[in-house]
């Protein structure tokens, strides 16, 4: 009898450990609905989705990076670099598509660079991407002379436009979601990032070209950051070299809240989207209830802490299951 109770208690704990983020999301939605009458209006929901979309797109990429046992600290700066260069490509050619593609390519280029340096010189991703963080920011400032690129009205579709009443950034966030979910769940690429994060040596011994994989993950991640950069500039209606500050941390927070383990091998894109929703809703309800931005900062820090504690807790649950 007590054994059964234990078992039920245990599997409940397991469920919480594995899907804790869903409980939190549900809880947050209920509380927010009670706290603010505006919360559940479609306008507000669109607002939340639109505000989180840019960071979530970055978070998809960093989720794959973390699953493969690495980290990327450069995304905030690369958002700025790819954003301003994309914007300026638009200004030169007059074509928003060229601007978009150039932005994505610049992002992918920085990712390719990160991945190559990490694998060729066998350096920790933490250090290499930290360097890229300052280099990319510097390049963005250098390229623009420190001034924003303005008069880009025709470029704002990606950030401000709507399709069937849904903001374009939200549509992009969802389309990329589908693509990345398929990639991580249904392809060799996805299998390999998990294998590398779980046991890199086993992955190498199984004939997986781990170095090439790492370069590929970083390049793909960079491309997503580039995409986010273009959407951001398009949304704020100018190419801002100082934009995107700390985005890397927001993205990592979303991934970790969504159950991605910082020690690699565990995580999901769906979890990250839910993590994004949690962060987005929290920000939204704090604004709706007029909580001061200072308190918001503090709360955000606490949430990161809780997410990491949950990560460690999940780990110990899983190892005690052995």
């Amino acid at each position: 009898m007590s054994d059964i109770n234990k078992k039920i208690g245990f599997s409940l704990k397991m469920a919480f450990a594995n899907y804790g983020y869903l409980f939190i999301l549900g809880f947050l939605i209920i509380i927010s609905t009670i706290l603010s009458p505006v919360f559940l209006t479609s306008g507000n929901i669109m607002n939340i989705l639109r505000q989180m979309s840019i960071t979530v797109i970055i978070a998809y990429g960093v989720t794959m990076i973390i699953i493969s046992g690495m980290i990327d600290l450069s995304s905030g700066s690369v958002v700025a670099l790819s954003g301003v260069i994309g914007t300026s490509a638009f200004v030169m050619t007059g074509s928003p598509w060229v601007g978009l593609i150039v932005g994505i390519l610049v992002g992918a280029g920085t990712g390719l660079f990160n991945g190559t340096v990490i694998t060729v010189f066998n350096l920790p991703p933490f250090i290499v991407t930290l360097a890229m963080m300052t280099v990319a920011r510097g390049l963005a400032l250098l390229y623009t002379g420190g001034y924003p690129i303005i008069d880009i009205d025709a470029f704002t579709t990606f950030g401000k436009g709507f399709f069937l009443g849904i903001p374009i950034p939200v549509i992009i966030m969802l389309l990329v979601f589908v693509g990345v979910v398929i990639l991580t769940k249904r392809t060799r690429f996805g299998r390999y990032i998990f294998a590398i994060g779980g046991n890199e040596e086993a992955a190498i011994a199984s004939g997986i070209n781990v170095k090439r994989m790492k370069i590929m993950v970083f390049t793909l991640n960079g491309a997503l950051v580039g995409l986010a950069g273009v959407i951001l500039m398009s949304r704020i209606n100018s190419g801002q070299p100082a934009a995107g500050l700390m985005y890397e941390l927001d993205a990592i927070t979303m991934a970790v809240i969504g159950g991605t383990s910082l020690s690699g091998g565990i995580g999901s894109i769906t979890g990250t989207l839910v993590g994004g929703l949690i962060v987005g809703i929290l920000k939204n309800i704090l604004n709706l209830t007029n909580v001061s931005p200072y308190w918001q900062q503090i709360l955000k820090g606490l949430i990161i802490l809780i997410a990491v504690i949950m990560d460690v807790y999940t780990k110990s649950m899983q190892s005690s299951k052995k």
Partner: protein
Amino acid sequence: MSYLIETKNITKRFGGLVAVDKMSFGVKEGEVVAVLGDNGAGKSTLIKMISGVYTADGGSVFYNGSEAIIHTPMDALAMGIETIYQDLALAENLNVYSNIFLGREKTKKKFGIFPVLDHEFMYDESTKILNKLDVKIPSLKNNVRTLSGGQRQAVAISRSIYWNAKVLIMDEPTAALGVAQQKQVLDLVNSLKDHGIAIILISHQMRDVFAVADRIIVMRRGMKVGDLIKKETSTEEVVNLIVGSEMVS
């Protein structure tokens, strides 16, 4: 009969340390050769040069009589050299069938172009090979993390057999196992021998070695100090070679 797999003067250095020093040995089809030696003698390093994890600093590997170019694990795997490692066996965060197919996943074309993983095929094939080898695993969809040491070892061996191992290298396959599980693994080894597979077995367990090996190679400080036919030697002689109180060749 000549050797299926053979090393000639193979050498590996780590900085100033010569981990494997001009080792020459070979294994024939259907033969089990045990490699013994104290901790740090160079056993794992030796087999990692055959399996492509390390590249040799000198000497060469011969496969079926001709020199084999093995630069990466994939090169070795493509020749049918399968290895079960002491320290880097499986990805614990992946399920059983994903591990059996790791690095060699079966894909199918979606919409005629996109290659996606064929989970069903991999699941079915894995079930078949595990059944064939009489290995019992609760669910192939469980992460390897949830398996016992013996089950993991059995999965690793099944994986090698599924991929048609011609040469099977096992680095301390019974080290972490209970008595019953040790016996299972050794029975498995004996049955593989009948299939004509050349087996290299690294072990510290004298009993295991004498139960399955045909020949015994002893290493000390990276060098081969003994190459003995099992039937003509004794535990005592082997132990003496390992600890170095006598030199035979």
